């Protein structure tokens, strides 16, 4: 990160690097502040710390400064509950917390980011390829306690080694910068010496506002984020601007969503990225079709491929993966992306013709009376209806069958004006050819669907 900032600042010092709800900064300003942060961290002997900060401008300063100092930052959700934060910080042994919040208390020392940038830089500090530049990234974890993956900027930087400067691009930060996908966007923007447009909050409606008013040309987001954003745009009758690049990741991209994106943004290049916090960025698809092309899978004729299918599950290797989980030494790391070993992903897939189609996460499978149901294909049928703006399919506990398939529906135009019985009937028809256990037995109509980390929450309801 620091090396990319140095390159961008040398090439285009006055280029706007980041525009947030709090202000903007050029590459020269960001680099100057990062150097101050690095020196201040060294003076305080802070070698690892938590970051609880909503503003992407501050986040960039702190991450780049940490990389220069060789300190390990770990971002938390900026609006995380104070008591939850204290628990998680204790688990990860974070004794320094860089934040502007006043409500965080616990066995840690609060350090204000403004204090750090107020101090002078140390000209002797320099980053190099032989100096560790650690970074800890907590997993999104739609269930249970998040894990934390140990990364190094030098490895992550390999994914953008071939990115050419595209200084006119303005990338919307739709992910939290604490997410792996958010870090990827930060890296890509710095490598392309472009501008990061980073509103906060980062809800789809905020993303739409940024697209409409801040000259956004490129967007990387989850399919769920796109569904919400497009629904918001329809509801506002907004005229969407032309985009140059659209990147989808974090979840499978359904065919109907890809069609809608192609229709709304005919000039945009559309990429789907397969990546995870643990394995790094594995592969991307640029043909606009759902799933991955079978021809890109590993086999004897394609020995360098890093994706294969085994027993209905996607396996991967290589990528700019993590060094290990927090608390593991390198030798103990079981899922390092650098090892080249094949690893399970937990993503269930099916080969249909020449495509590998995603069927959902292993953890999302619903057991309905012994029948394993994948929520994603059911959800795809429902979201394909013109009357449905958004849908979430999940498992609902039931005494008789263990679980039933349930669906939450956000109708186009909202619940109040919707003909819900008609939509029920449409849903019934749309899923009629699926096995009976797959058909939703509980359909409720809601104004909004809960997400986590920009992803739809499926699997069993607690």
């Amino acid at each position, binding site marked *: 990160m620091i090396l990319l900032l140095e390159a961008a600042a040398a090439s285009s010092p006055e280029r706007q690097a980041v525009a947030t709800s709090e202000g903007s900064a050029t590459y020269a300003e960001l680099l100057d502040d990062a150097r101050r942060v690095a020196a201040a961290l060294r003076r305080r002997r802070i070698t690892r710390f938590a970051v609880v900060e909503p503003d992407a401008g501050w986040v960039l300063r702190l991450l780049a400064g940490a990389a220069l100092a060789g300190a390990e930052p770990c971002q938390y959700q900026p609006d995380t509950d104070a008591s939850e934060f204290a628990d998680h910080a204790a688990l990860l042994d974070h004794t320094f917390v860089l934040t502007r919040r006043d409500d965080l208390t616990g066995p840690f020392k609060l350090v204000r980011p403004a204090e750090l940038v107020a101090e002078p830089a140390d000209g002797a500090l320099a980053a190099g390829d032989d100096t560790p530049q650690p970074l800890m990234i907590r997993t999104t974890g739609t269930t249970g306690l998040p894990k934390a993956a140990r990364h190094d900027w030098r490895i992550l930087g390999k994914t953008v080694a071939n990115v050419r400067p595209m200084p006119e691009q303005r990338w919307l930060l739709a992910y939290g910068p604490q997410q792996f996908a958010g870090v990827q966007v930060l890296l890509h923007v710095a490598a392309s010496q472009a501008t990061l447009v980073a509103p906060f909050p980062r809800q789809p409606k905020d993303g739409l506002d940024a697209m409409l008013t801040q000259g956004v040309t490129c967007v990387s987001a989850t399919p769920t984020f796109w569904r919400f954003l497009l629904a918001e745009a329809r509801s506002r009758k907004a005229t969407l601007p032309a985009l140059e690049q659209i990147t989808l990741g974090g979840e499978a991209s359904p065919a109907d969503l890809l069609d809608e994106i192609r229709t709304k943004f005919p000039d945009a290049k559309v990429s789907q990225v397969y990546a995870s916090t643990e394995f790094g960025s594995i592969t991307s698809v640029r043909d606009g079709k759902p799933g991955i092309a079978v021809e890109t899978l590993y086999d004897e004729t394609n020995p360098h491929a890093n994706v294969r299918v085994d027993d209905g599950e996607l396996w991967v290797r290589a990528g700019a993966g993590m060094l290990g989980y927090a608390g593991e030494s390198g030798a103990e790391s079981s899922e390092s992306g650098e090892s080249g070993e094949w690893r399970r992903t937990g993503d269930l897939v099916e080969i249909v013709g020449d495509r590998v189609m995603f069927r959902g996460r292993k953890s999302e499978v619903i057991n*309905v009376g012994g029948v394993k149901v994948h929520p994603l294909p059911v959800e795809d049928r429902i979201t394909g209806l013109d009357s449905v703006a958004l849908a979430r399919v999940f498992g609902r506990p039931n*005494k*008789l*069958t263990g679980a039933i398939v349930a669906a939450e529906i956000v109708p186009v135009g909202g619940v109040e004006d919707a003909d819900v019985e008609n939509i029920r009937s449409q849903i019934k028809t749309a899923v009629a050819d699926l096995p009976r*256990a797959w*058909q939703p*037995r*509980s359909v409720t109509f809601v104004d909004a669907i809960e997400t986590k980390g920009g992803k739809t929450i499926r699997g069993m309801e607690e």
Partner: protein
Amino acid sequence: MGTEQEKARGVISEFLQRTDKGAEGWNDETELWGEGLGLDSLEAAELSAMLEDEFGTDPFSAGGDLPEKVGDVLAFYATVST
């Protein structure tokens, strides 16, 4: 002012319409299974979910014997609502 039983009767009627079993031709003595309404486990699970949504509890999940007739379901909600 309706009773909980009347509300439960409404939920059953709605369920039968949704599952294409017809809203008419049943009464308190109608069997839920077999020759009566002919519910299978998935349909019974759907009805239990609808009743749970309405009342917060349902006779299929409450433990003990499963209800056998429509009247058993209604009897579970015998409390008069105010």
